[in-house]
């Protein structure tokens, strides 16, 4: 059968086009029901059971469900529960869902793919009996509703052919569209709203909690608290004629009644204040805003305001009192101010947090407080509040009607008891979007057997380096060893009479096991990186590979990808070659063991001499790198000693750095650079590289001002001059000063990013921190997916492996880089959140007095760092005691002047009064300020928890890229 669809389509230039598309109707599409005797089903094509038992009290006969589009869009959490089965998903619905929300579409596909759920997708749009043509003047939505009803009627009739003897299933249409339901009833179709259906389901008590409260927000005009949003058409018109602006809403962390929107037309971000000004926008939403006339502009309030812990019901407080925002006369602090008039696109996700049960006994409506402070509290309905009150839970937002003070949401699942280590880790992983589910069967099926050994023919294909004395050097307790090294003297000398050495870097050959386009490969690509929490590692590839078959353990034969150089004794590279190899590591050492082997002069064995050569060459490499302008940056790094049974941290200490750390690092850098050069030459369009842009001068302003106060003029014009002036900025007697300077310099840096060589001009390849024109990641394929791709590219160009399509596809490479960068960043945040969590656990029962340094001076606080623990946080200064000098960035109280880089003594303790946001409290001990230092108790009122953290996120140890993530590798 054949028909054609005709559309009218408007081109960008405004011409009206008539588009005619073919649309084939088929008679070979199956209904998927086991009760059907007419369709020629094969066994595996039957999805719907012939005896579909009813779980709903409203229908006492077996039935299949057909879902309307709005049901899938709003009730996906209900559908994901293992309760509703024997469901027919029509293609009309599938396509509408795909069009409207890709995330929900993916989740729906997941459900359909799960055989046990018995969801059948029926291609009604191409079935000759269920296709409906759009009537003249009919809206698309109405046509789709009609198509859905037609399909339901068809199923009913189709199944009834066999309904003579046995009772074959009926078909029930679930829809929340009242109008649709009415017409369906008139047409004799059984239908029901989701709410009615789910509330009458037996045997699944939690199901009703997951019902989404998807009222249409703008229709609740009775008792409305909020002004109505404009319709999309009004917004569109407003933006076009310049009255409205579009931007992404960012809620303030400190003040729940304040937020900002960055708009292209304005240099400053637009300030939004109060319930009405924000008008139900949630952090991340794309909103339309109207900007007030200039005389109504205000300045951002600098007070901290948390939503009250009691539920005031559906009332909005008198907000002028809450905001206390003052209109100032000085013009430079005034920010453009406006209000939200409409929501263009919601960016809601699922949020972790805790339930705050209602005080009324037996109440089902409760408030939920998200862990993320930027998200407002949410009203949810549940009958399990007693159980959930002590749990971390996950909640999804549904809608925010005009007459509700809080957005409405529903409970998704519980994560575990509050304070429980696993639950807290789960929160960290979820909030940072770290994929951490167990590896699927499909992924595990890609693994080699547990007792896998290297096949003979594989050895024959490779360079056999087993006789060579190779060793690895890593942090203690490291089980995913992805690099090993060797160095040996070779015959002959250079033309200048210098000694020659052969140096090899051997990297675990992960791509031998992770083949392109397998389930394993896709999973690894999606995870992109191994995530290190203090007490848990979330692997990128399954444990068998990461800790065993790929890990270059001592004494075991392993496959490797080697980069081997010939160098002279001044560490000049004479030649470079890459090849796959088989190695047998002589020893897997820790940094400390390697250091001892080097220092112990009595040791004359092969390992020790090899290490000594490596060490001396590394020093020359490092010298040359620094001379080129590489920055030696620092960040406070700490290491927790974890109790072996409870996994709770028992002690924390700053990490020790030895020569051997930098030895390994130098050779990894060298390997990465060598590989990057080769790839860029070989693949001008699709080489995966890493670049680090130079920071814009504005990043340095505060840093330079602070350094000037200590008497140093730093030259930040180039990385070379910056590096030099950092070296010279030393205060005798204050050894920590220089380190501190470097820590702060780190925070002025940009984030390094992966990119595909085709997307960037050659001069932008530069890596600022390492001062090298080109760079990539090659040395850690076990824990970074970027390295896996780099391995594949390199293997293809040295003829060890074949290319595959997506490897050479620019668009795919670009999309991959976006994901890599995103996951990388999220992994760093998650790691930091884990450190914070463990710090809190560590200080649960202790109070300490420690020396500290000032990192920054804020209006109401000092940002201080405890070098011993690498801890950092705000030390609040009450404004009645201290005056803040805006120009100089100092806080003054009588004779005491506090400025950046000052050394203090502080008292550390943990405030657990708010379970959601436990925080470390820093109290000033020295210098002594009467009535303020130490004994003052009531200072937690003004706590802003590390309010400036987001800006610091970008900054890491750029100088030590190669070993970046290994720092937290520990048991």
């Amino acid at each position: 059968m054949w028909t054609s669809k005709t559309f009218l389509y408007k081109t960008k230039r405004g011409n009206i086009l008539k588009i005619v598309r073919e649309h084939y109707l088929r008679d070979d599409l199956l209904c998927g029901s086991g009760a059907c005797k007419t369709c020629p089903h094969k066994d595996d094509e039957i999805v719907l059971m012939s005896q579909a038992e009813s779980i709903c009290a409203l229908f006492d006969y077996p039935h299949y469900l057909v879902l309307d589009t709005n049901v899938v869009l709003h009730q996906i959490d209900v559908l994901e529960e293992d309760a509703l089965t024997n469901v027919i998903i029509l293609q009309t619905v599938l396509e509408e869902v795909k069009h409207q929300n890709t995330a929900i579409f993916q989740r729906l596909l997941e459900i359909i793919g799960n055989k046990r759920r018995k969801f059948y997708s029926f291609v009604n749009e191409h079935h000759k009996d269920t296709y409906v043509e759009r009537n003249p003047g009919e809206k698309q939505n109405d046509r789709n509703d009609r198509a859905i009803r037609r399909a339901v009627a068809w199923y009913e009739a189709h199944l009834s052919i066999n309904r003579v003897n046995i009772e074959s299933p009926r078909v029930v249409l679930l829809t929340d569209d009242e109008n649709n339901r009415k017409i369906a009833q008139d047409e004799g179709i059984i239908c029901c709203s989701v709410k009615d259906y789910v509330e009458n389901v037996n045997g699944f008590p939690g199901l009703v909690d997951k019902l989404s409260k998807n009222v249409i927000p703008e229709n609740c005009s009775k008792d409305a608290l909020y002004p109505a949003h404009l319709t999309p058409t009004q917004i569109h018109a407003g933006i076009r004629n310049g009255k409205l602006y579009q931007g992404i809403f960012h809620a303030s962390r400190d003040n729940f009644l304040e937020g900002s929107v960055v708009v292209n037309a304005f240099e400053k971000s637009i300030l939004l204040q109060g319930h009405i000004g924000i008008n139900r926008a949630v952090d991340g939403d794309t909103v339309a805003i109207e900007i007030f006339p200039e005389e109504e502009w205000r300045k951002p309030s600098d007070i901290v305001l948390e939503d009250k812990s009691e539920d005031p019901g559906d009332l909005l407080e008198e907000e002028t009192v809450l905001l206390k925002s003052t209109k100032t006369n000085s013009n430079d602090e005034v920010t453009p101010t406006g209000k939200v008039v409409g929501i263009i696109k919601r960016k809601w996700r699922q949020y972790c947090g805790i339930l705050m049960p209602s005080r009324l006994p037996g109440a089902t409506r409760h408030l939920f407080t998200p862990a993320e402070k930027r998200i407002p509290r949410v009203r949810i309905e549940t009958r399990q509040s007693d159980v959930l009150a002590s749990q971390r839970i996950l909640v999804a937002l549904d809608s925010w009607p005009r007459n509700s003070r809080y957005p409405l949401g529903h409970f998704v699942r519980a994560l575990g008891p509050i304070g429980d280590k696993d639950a807290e880790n789960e929160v960290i992983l979820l909030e940072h979007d770290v994929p951490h589910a167990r590896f699927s069967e499909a992924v595990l099926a890609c693994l080699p057997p547990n007792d896998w050994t290297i096949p003979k023919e594989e050895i024959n294909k490779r360079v056999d380096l087993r006789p060579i004395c190779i060793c690895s050097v890593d942090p203690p307790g490291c089980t995913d060893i992805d690099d090993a090294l060797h160095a040996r003297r070779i015959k002959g000398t250079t033309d200048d009479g210098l000694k020659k050495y052969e140096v090899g870097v051997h990297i675990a050959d992960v791509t031998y096991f992770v083949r392109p386009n397998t389930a394993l490969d896709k999973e690894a690509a999606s995870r992109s990186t191994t995530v290190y929490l203090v007490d848990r590692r979330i692997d990128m590839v399954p444990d068998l590979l990461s800790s065993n078959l790929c890990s270059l353990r001592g004494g075991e034969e392993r496959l490797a990808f080697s980069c081997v150089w010939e160098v002279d004794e001044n560490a000049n590279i004479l030649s470079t070659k890459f090849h796959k190899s088989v190695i047998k590591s002589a020893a897997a050492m820790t940094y400390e063991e390697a250091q001892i082997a080097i220092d112990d002069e009595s040791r004359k064995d092969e390992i020790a001499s090899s290490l000594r050569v490596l060490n001396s060459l590394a020093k020359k490499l490092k010298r040359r790198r620094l001379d080129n302008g590489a920055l030696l940056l620092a960040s406070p790094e700490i290491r927790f000693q974890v109790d072996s049974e409870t996994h709770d941290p028992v002690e924390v200490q700053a990490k020790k750095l030895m020569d051997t750390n930098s030895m390994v690092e130098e050779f990894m850098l060298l390997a990465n650079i060598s590989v990057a050069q080769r790839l860029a030459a070989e693949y001008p369009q699709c080489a995966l590289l890493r670049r680090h842009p130079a920071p814009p001068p504005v990043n340095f302003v505060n840093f330079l001002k602070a350094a000037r106060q200590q008497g140093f003029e730093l030259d930040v014009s180039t990385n070379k001059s910056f590096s030099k002036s950092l070296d010279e900025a030393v205060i005798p007697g204050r050894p920590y000063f220089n380190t501190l300077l470097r820590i702060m310099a780190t925070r002025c840096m940009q984030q390094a990013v992966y990119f595909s060589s085709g997307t960037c001009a050659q001069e932008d390849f530069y890596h600022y921190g390492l001062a090298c024109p080109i760079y990539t990641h090659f040395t850690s394929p076990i824990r970074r997916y970027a390295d896996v791709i780099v391995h594949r590219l390199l293997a293809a160009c040295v003829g060890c492996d074949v290319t595959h399509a997506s490897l050479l596809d620019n668009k795919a490479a670009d999309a991959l880089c976006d994901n890599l960068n995103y996951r990388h960043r999220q992994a760093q945040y998650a790691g930091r959140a884990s450190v914070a969590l463990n710090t809190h656990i560590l200080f649960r029962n202790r109070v300490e007095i420690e020396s500290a340094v000032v990192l920054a001076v804020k209006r109401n606080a000092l940002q201080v760092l405890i070098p011993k623990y690498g801890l950092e946080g705000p030390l609040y200064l009450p404004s009645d005691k201290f005056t803040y000098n805006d120009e100089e960035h100092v806080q003054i109280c009588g004779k005491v002047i506090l400025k950046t880089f000052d050394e203090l003594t502080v008292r550390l303790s943990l405030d657990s009064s708010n379970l959601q946001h436990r925080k470390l409290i820093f109290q000033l001990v020295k210098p002594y300020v009467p009535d303020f230092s130490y004994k003052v108790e009531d200072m937690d009122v003004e706590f802003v928890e590390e309010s400036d953290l987001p800006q610091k996120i970008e900054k890491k140890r750029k100088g030590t890229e190669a070993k970046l993530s290994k720092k937290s590798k520990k048991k």
Partner: protein
Amino acid sequence: MPGPDLLSSQGLRLDGRRPNELRRIRCKMGVFTQPDGSAYLEQGNTKVLAAVYGPHQAAKSKSSTEGVVVNCQYSMATFSTGERKNRPRGDRKSQEMSLHLRQALTAAIKTELYPRSQIDVYVEVLQADGGAYCVCVNAATLALIDAGIPLRAYACACSASMAWHGGQPEPLVDVGHVEEAAGGVVLTVASLPSTENIALLEMSHRLHMDYFDVVLSRAMQGCRDIEVILDKAVREHLAEGWTKEDVVTI
């Protein structure tokens, strides 16, 4: 995987075909009386008219002692696409198509039978909805047969593209305009299916070697399927006993 979603999760294409299904083909031979042979052929919404003159004595400049010279002219009607625009004859695209057409038809015709002669083939695309070249070749073949010109074999052309289904590569036969516009690779083959010879092969983009064989074999299968349809049409046409002489006498 990269590339647009050309296959639904149920394995159907955007227009409802399965990956190995051709578009609907309808054809009619002998649609004009003036030329020596003519045919009208549509594949889906792509519709083409072909007319053949000859063989006749070749113009001096083109004449060859080796065999007949096939002269092709490809053109598109002003109204053939959604956006109406004037298409001058002999623009670069038409010239290229004419050359490609000539290559495919020359391979099919027993050229050695008519030295110093020439055959003129005119094709006009009345409506374009993807795969215009393929439809032109198929229409021209019918027109040649209608003109009674001896062929080695049917020349059939078919395109194929690549899609993914359940993580596996799944080539699509007879690519329509929507699928072409989605940006995937389109491989076009003109072949003599009964001899397994390929007369012309063209690709719109780069395609990784790994997939080339599957896409090519799908396109070749398309050619064979088309041959069956053309053959049936020819036999029916002849069975009607509706020949040129009849037309003259009417």
